[in-house]
């Protein structure tokens, strides 16, 4: 555990986070095959799996760090980097493919100025692809933070992004 932070406030926050992670691990004590559920819960808590958290999990569970890292990188659900506020998932299923999902992806990449797998610089949007969302009757489909948008065209997809953008602007205005 090499904590490289210099900010005292962040250090305190991390200690608090570690306590909570220890609680999550405690819930699974004495059961077999719990690494994946632990990682899932920790990711839900932190939003992603930073290196310090992986080391901490390894230390607490006695599983070798290399094994923890191996499991994290094997499954697509786990993220080593933080995600944007809105996670856009573009379905790449067969029905979506034959109904033009590639053009939806292109339009969104262009609209957001990022490539698949990236997050916008302002941290608002992350663009990802997913094998199949199982809403094949509504192809092509995307989800944004779990909300489904179906029967899309490139123009419709762009419009949805601009709706989210104005929502972000409004929420900012409220904060001020």
């Amino acid at each position, binding site marked *: 555990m090499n904590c490289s932070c210099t900010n005292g406030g962040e250090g305190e926050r991390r200690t608090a986070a570690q306590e909570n992670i220890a609680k999550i691990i405690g819930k699974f004590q004495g059961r077999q095959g719990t690494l994946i559920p632990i990682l899932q819960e920790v990711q839900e808590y932190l939003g992603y799996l930073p290196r310090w958290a992986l080391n901490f999990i390894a230390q607490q569970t006695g599983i070798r760090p290399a094994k923890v890292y191996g499991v994290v990188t094997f*499954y697509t659900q786990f993220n080593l980097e933080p995600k944007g506020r809105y996670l856009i998932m573009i379905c790449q299923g*067969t029905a979506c493919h034959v109904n033009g999902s590639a053009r939806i992806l292109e339009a969104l990449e262009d609209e957001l100025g990022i490539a698949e797998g990236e997050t916008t610089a302002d941290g608002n949007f992350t663009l990802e692809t997913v*094998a199949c*969302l199982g809403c*094949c009757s509504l192809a092509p489909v995307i989800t944004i933070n779990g909300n489904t948008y179906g029967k899309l065209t490139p123009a419709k997809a762009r419009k949805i992004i601009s709706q989210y953008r104005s929502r972000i602007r409004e929420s900012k205005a409220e904060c001020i």
Partner: protein
Amino acid sequence: MELVRAHILVCGGTGCTSSGSKAVQEALHRELKKQGLDKEVKIVETGCHGFCEQGPLVIVYPEGTFYCQVQVEDIPELVEEHLLKGRILQRLLFTEPLTQERVPHYKEIDFYRKQRRLVLRNCGYIDPEKIDEYIARDGYVALAKVLGEMTPEDVIEEIKASGLRGRGGAGFPTGLKWGFAAQAPGEKKYVVCNADEGDPGAFMDRSILEGDPHCVLEGMLIGAYAIGSDEGYIYARAEYPLAIKRLKIALAQARELGLMGDNILGTDFCFDLHIKEGAGAFVCGEETALMASIEGQRGMPRSRPPFPANSGLWGKPTNINNVETWANVANIIRNGAKWYGQFGTEKSKGTKVFALTGKVKNTGLVEVPMGIPMREIIYEIGDGILGDKKFKAVQIGGPSGGCLSEGQLDLAVDYESLGSAGAIMGSGGLVVMDEETCMVDVAKFFLDFTRAESCGKCTPCREGIQRMREMLQDFSEGKGSLEDLDKLERLAQTIKDTALCGLGQTAPNPVLTTLRYFRDEYEAHIRDKRCPAGVCRALLTYYIVPELCRGCTACARVCPTGAITGKVKEPHVIDPEKCIKCGACMEACRFDSIILK
């Protein structure tokens, strides 16, 4: 028990939820309250009805009136007409495309009439979050029969006699598999439900779990009794949050009623289940990889033997079946193997659930008897090709399956016939393709998927798929020679013969079947530098139709390379030398005057 005069069933499956069924349900609650009907009419949120295309779906019982594409704005009129005045609201009924007739009852719609819903008998009919509704439909009767009247051997014999085969894809006889696990030495045994439905274009298992979770639990209880297991796992995709939620509810309810846990129904039989959420890896649908994943490791397959029946989870005898297989079990036990045998063909008994999607008019979930000709599924249940275009292919079995052409339309849909055509039954994805789908592109699409999902353990799969993918990329750009087609075929066959697990062994199927049935399309790409379907971009040029162009200059303004020229209010022209085929002009054009040819 409350008595009501009508039930309104609102579909709460993923498809209908995506098209807004939650808001429809809330509007119904408000309107019933407003009209003072909330004590007489009950709203039930059900699982998937299968006709996702027409969602959100609302069915009113006792008549069984089927309303489709119901919107929030329709609710006041629907409540007033149907529930207050007792008149059917004509405009929300389904219109049969062929006859343009409005059909009031769903059993009369062609989409449903041709189906035999055995596995899906409760889907869309009961509230999946209430165990009482499942029990009212003879739920857990089979479990009681097994525990009260049958020995484990009797159960295995009954399943064997029914001819049930694994619905996960390979079609191994279920009774035989149970028998292996039952005979395997050892005190501790596991049963597992494979709900890691990762095939793109398939959502049968999700719909069963969302619409009728108890039938899967009951099947697993019966299986556990038969092989002598006291602990089980359901391994479900994390991408299916609704299915997981309903499974958890079902499990808690079953425990509460003593149908799960210690001394079930007052007998010595004890069994309980854990739900494991997968973390996103297609290969985990393979049984040995799935077990590695449950154990908390990287989900990589291992070679068999030893088979899971002898050495599975944590080295103990384990029996794995997929969701649809488990969902068949209670029906068979309750009605008997003989009853089950009347459906299907000699070697493929029972029914199969398919997710019918792609370029077909009626899309959704369909359950048909085995052996039904493919043509009936596509043209009678699916009502033919969208936009009256020409049928080109049907892809069956996802990335492990194959593409069949028009010549195979009369093929019987059963394990043997599909296998001889180079495809597999698979888990049940049926994606229909029309003349605008390029088969080289489709093969490339599936290899993109299997390449990304290959775990990398064995060389044929890790390297071989990559090489096949590179060759297809060349073909899609008009490169390569006709001899390369033979090379591709040889490579595909080698991978099929030598890969470690099911993923690698079946990954070449899309390539092999497209080469077999659509070789001319490959040849057109290579020899004529032409993509007949107009999909492979490198072989197409953007072209402005002069008659349609209004000279608005929108395309010229967005073109990043200045390839478009023309005067205002005069037709523009694209210089193919400068064009980089980015498609920006096509998107900018408001008059659809830019085409690919």
